[in-house]
């Protein structure tokens, strides 16, 4: 260590200091503010945390290990961190994180932010991340003995722990209905309905592995649900896209006809848009796949239809262990407006979680389970009929037994007849 005496026991951080330049807000400057101006406890923790982080920058290795820490009544939600170099950096030897679920849609009053800051200044290190990739507020840097009082204070404020380990995880929902005209369902209600119905699975981890819900109001999927969620709820509509032809003309008058053709007509993935000679457009709604592109470009002229609802895709996850999987379309459309609709969503969620709990192997995500047993077996287990929207194309392999094909075909025709009768009523 260099020059400690002139720096009042502060660990030198020459490598981290280099991250204080540049125009982007510097987390290092923030850590140093806590070290230099924080409460006595924050100062001590942050000095040693900066010391350990500098040590990581020198050695190019991490020095935290996990463990088991929980609060009364919960089996998860705390990410324990114990330093492996605590002899050198004792004040940050326990640096646990509380994962706390934010208000759905990430809305805060400044008053709430201040209260959270006050709690974390008192019980933790003074360092909070808005937000982790899980969608949690990450209250970082808490000693083992402070975890319970920190949780109690946050819980008094109306906040609850999120998920960790083999459990239902914290969900995310986009800004949606609160500030977006493209939103096709009440994301706040869906998010809170689903997670709050299954809190036991979040707080007492007992699933085979993690299970994530995410809620995006449209196919732009701003919370990355299809890639990242076991259960992705994506807003859509099934009637016609709404066109304001005068606004279409205004758009073309502004950007030019060539630009309109290049960026809208040609970019429609199903070639569903025609441009008329009078600068109005026609959309073949049966070919449209509700991808959102033309609506994104022409925000004033085009908007989703009125018969809105959601699609549900199951099984998204990253590499471990079989490789990347995106969610697969399981429910192409369901309405999500009435109390009854939300009850149906909750029931389906419960069916899928129960299937997962009963059938997944240890450390297997539901997408991997579906891969292992095949989509037909999964559909049968959760009571969903096969639908062409579930596939890019029907199977190409002939290695399948089709002796009951006629029975299955009868089911399809019976279902179609039922559906057309329902829509006639």
């Amino acid at each position, binding site marked *: 260590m260099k020059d400690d005496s002139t720096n009042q026991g502060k660990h030198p951080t020459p490598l981290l200091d280099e991250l204080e330049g540049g125009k*982007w807000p510097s987390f290092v400057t923030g850590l140093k503010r806590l070290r230099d101006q924080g409460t006595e406890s924050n100062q001590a923790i942050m000095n040693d945390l900066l010391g350990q982080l500098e040590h990581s920058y020198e050695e190019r290795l991490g020095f935290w290990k996990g463990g088991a820490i929980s609060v009364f009544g919960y089996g998860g939600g705390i990410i324990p961190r114990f330093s492996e170099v605590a002899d050198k950096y004792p004040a940050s030897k326990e640096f646990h994180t509380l994962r706390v679920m934010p208000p759905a849609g990430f809305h805060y009053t400044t008053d709430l932010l201040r209260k959270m800051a006050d709690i974390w200044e008192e019980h933790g290190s003074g360092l909070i991340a808005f937000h982790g990739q899980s969608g949690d507020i990450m209250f970082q840097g808490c000693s083992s003995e402070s975890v319970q009082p920190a949780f109690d204070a946050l819980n008094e404020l109306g906040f609850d722990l999120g998920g960790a380990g083999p459990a239902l995880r914290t969900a995310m929902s986009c800004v949606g209905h609160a500030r977006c005209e493209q939103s096709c369902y009440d994301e706040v209600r869906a998010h809170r309905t689903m997670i709050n119905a299954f809190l036991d699975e979040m707080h007492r981890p007992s699933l085979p592995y993690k299970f994530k819900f995410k809620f995006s109001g449209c196919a732009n999927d701003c919370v990355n649900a299809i890639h990242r969620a076991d259960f992705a709820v994506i807003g859509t509509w099934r009637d016609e896209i709404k066109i304001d032809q005068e606004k279409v003309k205004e758009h073309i008058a502004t950007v030019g006809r060539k630009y309109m053709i290049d960026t809208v007509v040609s970019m429609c993935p199903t070639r569903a848009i025609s441009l008329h000679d009078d600068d109005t457009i026609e959309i073949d709604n049966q070919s449209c796949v509700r991808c959102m592109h033309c609506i994104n470009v022409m925000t004033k002229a085009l908007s989703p239809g009125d018969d809105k609802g959601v699609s549900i895709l199951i099984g998204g996850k990253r590499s471990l262990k079989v490789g990347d999987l995106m969610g697969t379309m399981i429910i192409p459309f369901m309405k999500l407006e009435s109390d009854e609709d939300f009850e149906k969503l909750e029931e389906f969620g419960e069916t899928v979680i129960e299937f997962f709990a009963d059938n997944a192997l240890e450390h297997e995500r539901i997408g991997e389970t579906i891969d292992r047993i095949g989509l037909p077996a999964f559909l049968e287990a959760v009571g969903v009929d096969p639908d062409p929207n579930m596939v890019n194309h029907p199977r190409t392999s002939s290695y399948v037994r089709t002796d009951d094909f006629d029975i299955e075909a009868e089911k399809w025709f019976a279902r179609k007849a039922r559906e057309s009768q329902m829509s006639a009523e």
Partner: protein
Amino acid sequence: MNQQADTPRMPDEVGVPDPFPYMHPTLKANYGNWAWHDRPRPGVLHHVSKSGDEVWTVRAGTQRQMDVFTIRKLADIGDEYADGYVRFTTRSNIEYMVTDESKVAPLIEKLESEGFPVGGTGASVSMISHTQGWLHCDIPGTDASGVVKSLMDVVYEEFVQEKMPNRVRITTSCCQINCGGQGDIAVNVQYTKPPRINHDLVANVCERPAVVARCPVAAIRPAMVNGKPSLEVDEKKCVACGACYPPCPPMQINGKEETRIAIWVGGKHSNARSKPTFHKLAVANLPNNPPHWPEVAAVVRKIVKTYKKDAKHWERMGEWIERIGWNRFFEKTGLAFTKHHLDTWTGARKTMNMSAHVHF
């Protein structure tokens, strides 16, 4: 133990908090009733409700890992300039909402003067979604916040303006689990060597059957080493993914030189135009070089510049590459195409060109 400790406080399992008490009143009043939006300038969204109400949102970048002083400063700005309400985006940008257009300019000026760049909207490079790294993770190959700070300094100008062909979503991940997620550009740790095993610790620390089961290529088997029950790795099979390290820390996958960085391109979450895609390998084996990761930054800068110059409006990174072809991508970015770009994992056949279509 004192009496208080004997009777712990019962938790109130409130679950996901109701956001309406914390939501800007104009957002609350127009919940589900918005009509359209536009972007009057980079960093500002303007939403108009069917009721005629209007709201301007000013978006600014933060360091995500925030000290309480930064949080209070952001709160002060919210009180003085923006009605006392904020929200965060999924990429850790903060948003202030105002209902009076004249409040937009002073708010922007204040945010910028306090060092919070206004931008991240539309066809910009938004904040990098990232992980915890050396600051807090128990298995990190590199840092997260530091890599992000370095890269955001490099692409700063593209955050504060909207001059890219379409939005650019960059992610970083400090191990191959890839918690940072898919991105137009993904900067991810890529291990290069099998784990180094501390055989003295395995029996006490690791649940050995679980570790054996965790390996995606079945390269781990139980073994007695120096008379102790341990695990051994078939290094010819091992793909150095690091999957054994979290359940068994004595199987150290990281090394000062062995932990490298790979850059991936063309991931896309949105369904707009093309279906969502995974990112694909652009380059591997870049050094893990704190505090500025200059080799990584140079590649990211090159890819961003090439995409900016070459892609058509509204083409995302992956869509641009699909149009121009991978040979042109590697040519224009000056990166090498190697045997390691040929996928060998399950489903690899579907990544091959099984046609006569060739880009010259």
